[in-house]
């Protein structure tokens, strides 16, 4: 009989696994107070920032790496990592024409053309290569609207007052182990500022690329939306294939004032390691947004498909009355990938509302956990939360877990939680096949049906891409 067994399919190779040969300015491996000072001086930073780093570093030394997540990996040797690597070119160029063509080529290959002629028409892009931002498109056009979109390094130079005001105001430098590490050694990232009453005229996007094999990536993103402002922001990430693991520990902070909104979408496709679990990115990320103003809104949408390890809980602190937090997530793990991801919705203000929709797909021998906290504080009178956590298993060797935590100190708050687990069965696949639909298309139809609620939240340009990415990732999954 020639029917395809799900086990027979061979994995699709990772398309973004190439390395760019480029001269790099790297510092020596290892982490110490001197290294923190060196990074700060390389970036010619103001004193407040150096102090921020040093405080974080000293605190980090007192912390132990967290072990509560459902993740298993060999201990990370923090002295065996390079904390700063930058492509050798002089300070950021005024014009893209001066950027090393090799770098432009790299982003071209990744499908992120930066040059004037080819750039995406309605998306402004900040391209981050290893530790530094190499180019930001449409900056001038955005500036006409008063929107600031630039690399973190530039923001420190051009808008130090904003950085000083907001940096660490949502994720404190002592928030957790990885946030403290990031606060000590972060090298670059993106900064977005949308002034009062401005609706950002285009999608903003940052594309992160890890290139070096022994370098950690520690970027920092800060987005501030003033009263009545709104913005939609998307980040994407890829990395070359190495048989060693690289550490990625980012921090993202969002601040939203009265009536403002931020929609933050992520398509994460870091290298996941090979089918035996060798190599891949360790992704330990702290993302949090604060709805400070009344009627403000933060919406996180994430499509997590890459990384060997994902540890990530994009959260909302709903302070302002009537503020809204949303979390839409698709996390797909295959082969030996492990993901422990979810969200925290901290209801502080009255009548705050939150929605959590999480879709976990586990294939191969992978493990996929949803971990989420819904907390109703004493002031959250009339607050509401709705959570839905669905897991889909492909094959019989993958694991799915759901860890919902609920804390309420407010009797007049409503919390609803629904969870389900399903498995793609041989009979469902055969049914679709017996109607002429190929095996892989059948799997991807079922998976994208499962994820539809989340994909509908992605900006249009990226929804189709996310669908394709998932199909690609599942090619060769066990059934």
């Amino acid at each position, binding site marked *: *009989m*020639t*029917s*395809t*067994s799900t086990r027979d399919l061979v994995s699709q190779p990772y398309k973004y696994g190439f390395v760019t040969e480029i001269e790099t300015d790297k510092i020596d491996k290892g982490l110490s107070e001197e290294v923190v000072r060196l990074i700060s001086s390389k970036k010619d930073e103001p004193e407040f920032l150096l102090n921020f780093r040093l405080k974080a570093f000293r605190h980090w030394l007192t912390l132990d790496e967290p072990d509560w997540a459902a993740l298993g990996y060999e201990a990370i040797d923090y002295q065996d990592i390079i904390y700063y690597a930058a492509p050798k070119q002089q300070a950021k160029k005024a014009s893209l024409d001066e950027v090393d063509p090799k770098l432009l080529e790299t982003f071209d290959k990744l499908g992120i053309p930066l040059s004037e002629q080819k750039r995406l028409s309605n998306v402004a892009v900040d391209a981050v290569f290893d530790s530094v931002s190499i180019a930001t498109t449409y900056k001038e056009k955005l500036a006409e609207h008063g929107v600031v979109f630039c690399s973190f390094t530039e923001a420190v130079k051009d808008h130090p007052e904003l950085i000083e005001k907001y940096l660490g105001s949502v994720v404190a430098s002592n928030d957790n182990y990885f946030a403290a590490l990031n606060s000590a050694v972060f090298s670059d990232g993106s900064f977005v500022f949308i002034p009062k009453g401005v609706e950002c005229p285009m999608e903003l996007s940052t594309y992160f690329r890890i290139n070096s094999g022994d370098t950690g990536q520690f970027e920092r993103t800060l987005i501030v939306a003033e009263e009545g402002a709104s913005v939609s922001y998307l980040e994407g990430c890829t990395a070359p294939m190495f048989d060693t693991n690289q550490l990625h520990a980012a921090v993202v902070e969002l601040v939203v004032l009265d009536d403002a909104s931020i929609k933050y979408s992520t398509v994460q496709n870091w290298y996941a390691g090979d089918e035996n679990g060798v190599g891949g990115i360790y992704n330990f990320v702290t993302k949090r947004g604060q709805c400070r103003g009344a009627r403000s809104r933060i919406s996180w949408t994430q499509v997590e498909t890459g990384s060997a390890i994902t540890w990530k809980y994009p959260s909302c602190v709903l302070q302002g009355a009537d503020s809204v937090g949303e979390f839409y997530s698709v996390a797909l793990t295959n082969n030996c990938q492990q993901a422990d991801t979810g969200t925290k919705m901290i209801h502080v203000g009255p009548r705050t509302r939150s929605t959590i929709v999480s879709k976990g797909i586990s294939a191969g021998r992978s493990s996929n956990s949803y971990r989420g906290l819904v907390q109703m504080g004493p002031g959250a009178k009339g607050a509401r939360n709705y959570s839905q956590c669905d897991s889909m298993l492909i094959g019989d060797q993958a694991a799915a877990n759901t860890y919902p935590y609920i804390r309420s100190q407010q009797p007049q708050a409503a919390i609803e939680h629904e969870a389900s687990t*399903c498995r793609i*069965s*041989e*009979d*469902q696949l*055969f*049914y*679709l*096949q*017996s*109607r*002429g*639909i*190929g*095996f892989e*298309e059948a799997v991807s*139809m*079922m998976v*994208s*049906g*499962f994820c*539809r609620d989340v994909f509908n939240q992605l900006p249009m340009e990226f929804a189709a891409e996310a669908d394709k990415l998932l199909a690609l990732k599942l090619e060769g999954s066990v059934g």
Partner: protein
Amino acid sequence: MIRPDAELLLDITDLHASVEDQPILKGVNLQVRSGEIHAVMGRNGSGKSTLSKVLAGHPAYRVTSGTVRYRGENLFELEAEERARLGVFLGFQYPVEIPGVSNLEFLRVATNARRLKQNLEELDTFDFEDHVHERLKVVQMDPAFLERSVNEGFSGGEKKRNEILQMALLEPVVAILDETDSGLDIDALRIVAGGVNQLANANNATLLITHYQRLLDEITPDYVHVMASGRILRTGGRELALELEQIGYDWVDKELAAQGVA
């Protein structure tokens, strides 16, 4: 309609097949020509449903020996989806539910996969809507079912109508209907049988797998086969079905014993 010169669509020779190493089919021989309607009857466990699954290419069924030629081609060299595209259709006894996949989208993808093989143009979303609405009439189905997930929350009768709708869209050359009558009340049975009759023509063939005569009151078979112990024990015309209705299957055991099979 029997025409000896009609194209031989399905040629099953000494077919043996197992499930989990348990032999179920033990030498099936059957020839189906275009224009013919065959009924395969028999008790539970006689191998009727296994035969349908083997023909459609279900991965859990293993062919151990014998051949099946479909329009001259070795059927077992084709993947399940390829068989479907070439015109082999299985109407399921228990159509599965596929949550999250829109019925309309599913029908469109399936129809286009078949049309591509027939060298017909693929239908875009708009053309397909017109096409499917016209076909809905065959089974008097409410268009609301197109908007739902595939078979999800459908009643037994609605699932069977959805099967015949798929048959109407895919225009199969050989349609194998596995207990399409099971679980249907008489009105639903008439609608489903009416659909099958409308779709049968001189260029295709239908294989009805059923326990009961009542489906054959609605669809007149050219041949009736009685399966027992993984083989076709007896073949006759429609009168054989009527006879079975009278005398039941007790004679089967005797005949098998006489052949030394039971």
